[in-house]
């Protein structure tokens, strides 16, 4: 579910980065109250644990395939929401930097999609609600399942919104939602099952680990309303300012606004039905589709998007191709010269 740098615009990436930084700053402030320096190594080593545990293959009964753990919920349950959020953020940063999973610009999006919903929505409102009357195996199961599924659903929906607002893909809102949500329902169910199995085991073996975190009232006397409304204001402000800066150079933002706004009515049942039949149309009448689409919406597309598409005349595109080839050749030449200089220098010093 990692967002990549290639799929987001600077405005969306920047806004989410600032939102995630805000939540992280708040978490750091909160952890400082109950964080002795003892907990720092625990967070660090637990981060490494989740990283490694993500690579364990859990065979899924009846399917013949295997699933993996995401670990967001597990971290929230074992370390509490604040430390859990920070730990997940550091895992995501390492994944982005060293493994190319996600990206530095998309870091905020990923922290938010995978960390915020699990640690700050699913954990306090769902997991805590299920276990409010004490912990037992059944409650751990229900709590883990519900919170993992809902947390992932929100994360997946967030991915859809961020991708569409960035306007780098052509996926229509309805189709993307229909693709993402069911897949993440299955992923969420596996996540819930594994999480509940692990939490139950730890609870039976070392109950104090689970109970200690559960007792540290997740939100004490802090009003969640304050956090959420602060966050909302920050997102609107930052997003607004950034997109104002970007408006002199509309990299698909206007288009995506139009597209998402135009598709807003898809939320209604009729809309989903429409999208479904639309998909069916596309898959069954693929050869016809081209003409149909061109006839029907040519003028519309031209009207809305012509200004965005770089003026295409044979002359410029030829010079574009020639120039592109020249640029690549030039780049290769520079690399060659650079490595020759390096070799020559090494020889000179040797």
């Amino acid at each position, binding site marked *: 579910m990692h967002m990549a740098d290639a799929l987001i615009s600077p405005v969306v990436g920047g806004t989410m980065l600032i939102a995630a930084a805000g939540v992280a700053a708040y978490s750091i402030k909160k952890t400082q109250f109950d964080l002795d320096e003892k907990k720092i190594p625990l967070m660090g080593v637990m981060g490494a644990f989740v990283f490694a545990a993500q690579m364990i293959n859990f*065979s899924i009964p009846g399917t013949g395939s295997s699933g993996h753990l995401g670990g967001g919920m597990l971290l929230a349950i074992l370390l509490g929401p604040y430390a859990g959020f920070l730990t997940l953020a550091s895992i995501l940063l390492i994944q982005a930097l060293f493994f190319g999973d996600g990206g530095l610009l998309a870091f905020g999006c990923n922290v938010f999609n995978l960390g915020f919903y699990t640690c700050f929505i699913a954990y306090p409102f769902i997991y805590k609600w299920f276990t409010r009357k004490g912990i037992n195996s059944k409650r751990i199961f229900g709590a883990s399942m519900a919170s993992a599924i809902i947390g992932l659903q929100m994360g997946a929906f967030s991915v859809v919104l961020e991708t569409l607002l960035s306007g780098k*893909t052509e996926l229509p809102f309805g189709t993307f939602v229909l693709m993402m949500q069911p897949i993440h329902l299955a992923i969420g169910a596996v996540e819930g099952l594994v999480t509940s199995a692990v939490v139950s085991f730890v609870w039976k*073996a*070392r109950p104090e680990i689970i109970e200690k975190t559960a007792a540290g009232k997740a939100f004490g006397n802090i009003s969640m309303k304050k956090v959420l409304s602060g966050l909302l204001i920050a997102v609107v402000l930052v997003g607004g300012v950034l997109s104002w800066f970007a408006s002199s150079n509309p990299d698909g933002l206007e288009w995506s606004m139009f597209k998402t706004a135009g598709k807003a009515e898809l939320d209604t049942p009729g809309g989903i039905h429409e999208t479904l039949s639309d998909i069916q149309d596309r898959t069954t009448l693929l050869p016809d589709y081209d003409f149909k689409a061109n006839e029907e919406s040519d003028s519309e597309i031209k009207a809305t998007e012509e200004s965005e598409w770089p003026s295409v005349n044979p002359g410029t595109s030829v010079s*574009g191709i020639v120039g592109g080839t020249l640029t690549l050749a030039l780049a290769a030449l520079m690399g060659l010269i650079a490595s020759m200089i390096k070799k020559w220098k090494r020889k000179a010093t040797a």
Partner: protein
Amino acid sequence: MYKMIDSISHIRLLDELAQKESTIHKIHPLAKVLTTLVYLLTIASFGRYEIGGLLPHIIYPILIFAFGELPVAPILKRVLIVEPVIIGIGILNPLFDRYMVAFGGIAISRGWVTFLSIFTKCGLTIIASLLLVATTEIDKLAFALRMLRIPKIFVLQLLLTYRYISVLLEEVYKMQRAYFLRAPGHKGIHRHVWGSFAGHLVLRTFERAQRVYQSMSLRGFNGEYNTGTIPNIAIRDVVYMAGWSLFFILARIFNIPNLLGSMFIGVINR
């Protein structure tokens, strides 16, 4: 299993590369972090239909590879491992945008243009992150993050996570190997032992954390992380950062391949 071995060797490789002492390695970590950010920002700001304009950005990784004395194959391999995810999303573009455009006398659907654009961007952005960590040791990176006012707790925790990833990966690898040797033909861990398999690892991790804390305390850890000495930012570092940033921004504003192409064609026609 393969993924685990691959991850362990990948981390070790980057660790080793970061310890080299090339021209790029000697640049101040903060300058490299900021340059990478400008690079990523300019790439992300290109529109959906842009491919040509992106090409000059390829010069950056080529020169870093050359001056940083880095091996090309293992880093490109990592990009190839990640690209399929992006291809999965991007490949749908040609299905949804079938509006035909003429490009140099060839008619292609606009969806392919956006797909290629995403593909190129993905490659360039992943390489940029990998080049940053291949030329900067994690301690120095942490120092740069501290200079950017990232809180101490987060940076410290990041370093600890990084330090223990290979330790825990090896532990998980051993556990999985032991399991599969006793349960041949299994594709994954059976659901009856999901809890105990990962749960034992949790317990061991908690105990390990305690030992780590104790040994850190014995060495005088008081919540402070000492990065050692890192020289101040020199003129060379400022020039490095400003030079690259200027180039990225110029390449973003002007379509260099188009300019080059028209110049070339102009000369030929004359």
